[in-house]
């Protein structure tokens, strides 16, 4: 076929890991140097990617799916020529624009205008091209009023919007995009998604990596599933997403997490067991008290300085709905202390306001800013139906996942405007 623009043949990338970790200061390296004289530090090979072959045709939008550590970003780095493959060949026809991060090279001391030019140049645009698109870029970002102010005075949202806006006007024949759509508020994400959609419709070839199943389904025509560095499935995007979701570890009450699931962090502590249950140990029910129980594994007791534990609840397409965080608890009972193997952490939610559905969990643990364990959306649980409103009605899938109690009234405009004083007994009677 002549219209194949990317052809990858048996691509592989190996990393050498030295277990001692790279020494980056003088004392460390001196000590390491002496240690090295006596004995080479243990090395191990790690194939981030292996035997990956695929073809992408002109104008196609290929979604690359996989859990963390499956090799998605490595694949993009090889195609973007940031690093060389260890084995295999890829042929790319046309100019490649890569968007692995928004705002690469952004400098806080420079103004928005300066940064647009700098970042544009870094992304491969010519000065004349940036000048031509400048108005559009600024307009898209919505920060016109601050364009001549140093970026350090921007809110983080504004910075990200400006950075994305530059990237959005990149126009190579082939675009590699890595998870950059998850920036900004919801409205801006929608706008960004529309923009990428526009780009794909204008005939450009796009390789798109994301954890957000909804945007993958919307943007891509084909999908490729990566698992542990190799292609495990290739086909229509719907089938690929379905395949990916079904592969996820399903955990209900008492489920044990495997050691080798995709996770990050130092690992001095690991989430071993997770359960989501009602007060009496049964399946969680919509609108009722729910207890999240996390059992921790520790090879050695860990004296934690400042614990941050968080549980994220997401839809199956990966959209975060709720974040539970020990810091949100006003009593602040969990702060520091000695954590031993088998320590159990519980988080009780008096009312879980989610409609009956299957959801995903993300577990996160850090100690004074050092990431200890992070298990992103690989655990699934189901919320069982109840008569939450007492009306035998519940919202449908299209009405949104959140359950909110409500009171409806009819009366004169003045009385309707008056908020009912919930919890203070005396409620005005409707005449």
């Amino acid at each position, binding site marked *: 076929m002549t219209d194949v*623009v990317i052809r990858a043949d048996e691509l592989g990338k190996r990393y050498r890991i030295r277990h001692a970790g790279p020494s980056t200061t003088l004392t460390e390296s001196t000590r390491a140097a002496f240690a090295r004289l006596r004995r080479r530090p243990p090395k191990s090979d790690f194939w981030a990617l292996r035997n990956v072959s695929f073809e992408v045709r002109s104008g196609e939008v290929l979604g690359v799916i996989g859990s963390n550590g499956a090799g998605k970003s490595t694949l993009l780095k090889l195609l973007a*020529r940031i690093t060389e493959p260890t084995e295999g060949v890829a042929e790319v026809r046309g100019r490649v624009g890569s968007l692995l991060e928004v705002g690469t090279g952004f400098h806080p001391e*420079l103004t928005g205008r300066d940064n647009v030019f700098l970042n544009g140049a*870094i992304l491969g645009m010519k000065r004349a091209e940036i000048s031509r698109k400048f108005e559009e870029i600024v307009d898209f970002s919505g920060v016109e009023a601050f364009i001549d102010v140093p970026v350090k005075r921007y809110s983080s949202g504004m910075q990200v919007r400006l950075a994305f806006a530059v990237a959005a006007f990149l126009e190579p024949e082939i675009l590699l995009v890595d998870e950059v759509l998850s920036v900004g508020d919801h409205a801006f994400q929608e706008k960004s998604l529309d923009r990428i959609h526009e780009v794909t419709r204008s005939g450009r070839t796009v390789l798109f990596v994301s954890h957000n199943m909804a945007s993958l389904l919307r943007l891509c025509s084909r999908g490729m599933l990566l698992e542990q560095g190799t292609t495990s499935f290739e086909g229509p995007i719907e089938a690929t997403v379905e395949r990916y979701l079904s592969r996820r570890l399903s955990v209900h009450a008492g489920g044990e997490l495997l050691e080798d699931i995709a996770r990050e962090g130092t690992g001095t502590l690991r989430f071993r067991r997770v359960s989501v249950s009602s007060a009496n140990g049964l399946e969680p029910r919509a609108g009722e008290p729910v207890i999240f129980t996390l059992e921790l594994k520790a090879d050695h007791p860990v004296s934690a300085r400042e614990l941050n534990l968080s549980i994220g609840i997401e839809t199956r397409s990966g959209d975060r709905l709720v974040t539970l965080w020990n810091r949100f608890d006003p009593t602040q009972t969990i702060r520091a202390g000695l954590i031993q193997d088998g320590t159990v952490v519980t988080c009780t939610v008096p009312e879980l306001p989610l409609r009956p559905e299957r959801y995903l969990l993300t577990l996160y643990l850090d100690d004074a800013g050092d990431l200890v364990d992070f298990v992103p959306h690989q655990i699934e649980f189901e919320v069982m139906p109840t008569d939450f409103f007492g009306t035998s009605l519940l919202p449908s899938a299209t009405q949104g996942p959140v359950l909110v109690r409500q009171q409806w009234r009819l009366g004169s405009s003045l009385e309707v405007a008056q908020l009912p004083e919930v919890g203070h007994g005396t409620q005005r009677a409707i005449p």
Partner: protein
Amino acid sequence: MASSSSTAAIVKAPPGELPVTTIRSTSGWLPPRLGELWHERQLLYFLAWRDVKVRYAQTVLGAVWTIFQPLALMLVFTLAFRRIGKVETEGVNYAVFCLAGLTFWMFFSRAVTQGSDSLVANAQLVTKTSCPRLLIPLASITGALVDFAVGLAFFFVFAAIYGYWPSWRIIFLVPSLVLGLTFLVGIVLLLAPLNVRYRDVRQALPFLVQIWLFLSPVAYPITSLGPRWSAIVALNPLVGVIESFRWSLLGTPPPTAVQLASAIVIGLLAFGVGLTTFARAERTIADLA
């Protein structure tokens, strides 16, 4: 979307006309990718411009700092070398003599420390974009050149106050600078990737550069060392560079043939070695940065 019309034309062109890139593992020594560098020269400009702009952002004195540092050092050296050490400076006023050397030296030391640290400081560019890696240290050196121009302009004013005006020798300013740049670029290209692997470089370098200052004829003329040191002196390529630089500015004795030959040979050697090792190292630098 009005802006897409131009690209649409490119996309409609037969695929055969698009550039084809082959991505594969390479090994051994490869020629540096200089064509790529030329293609991205605008980015070189932008990166250098960023370095200069950021350096003086939120400073009250701005570029005054560029001239203040050599000036302050010159005053200290006047005290130490002239008043206490009684160094003779070929009949040239010591302050002017010393400032000429320091103007070059400040550029060299800044360019060599910043250039060697440039890949680490710009790790984001290395790990997230495919911009030619060679651009990064070169942009850093270019940024330092801008400061050098300011420092040089100040030197001319300072020298004029003392009655030293440029002579016909000034045309040799550029060749002597090129000589210095050859060596500078070479060692920066050698050290920058090394610093990515071993951060010891960034610890050791400022200290070594400081020692190097006293081993080079910045605060004193090389003749004041006497013939016993000439063998060691010949190994320092900066001797030839600084002596010819000062000769072109002030008409002090030109470097000897040995000093000049040393500067040229060692300079070209460093340049060649730097360029080839960089071309070899840049391929895996993203994995280490």
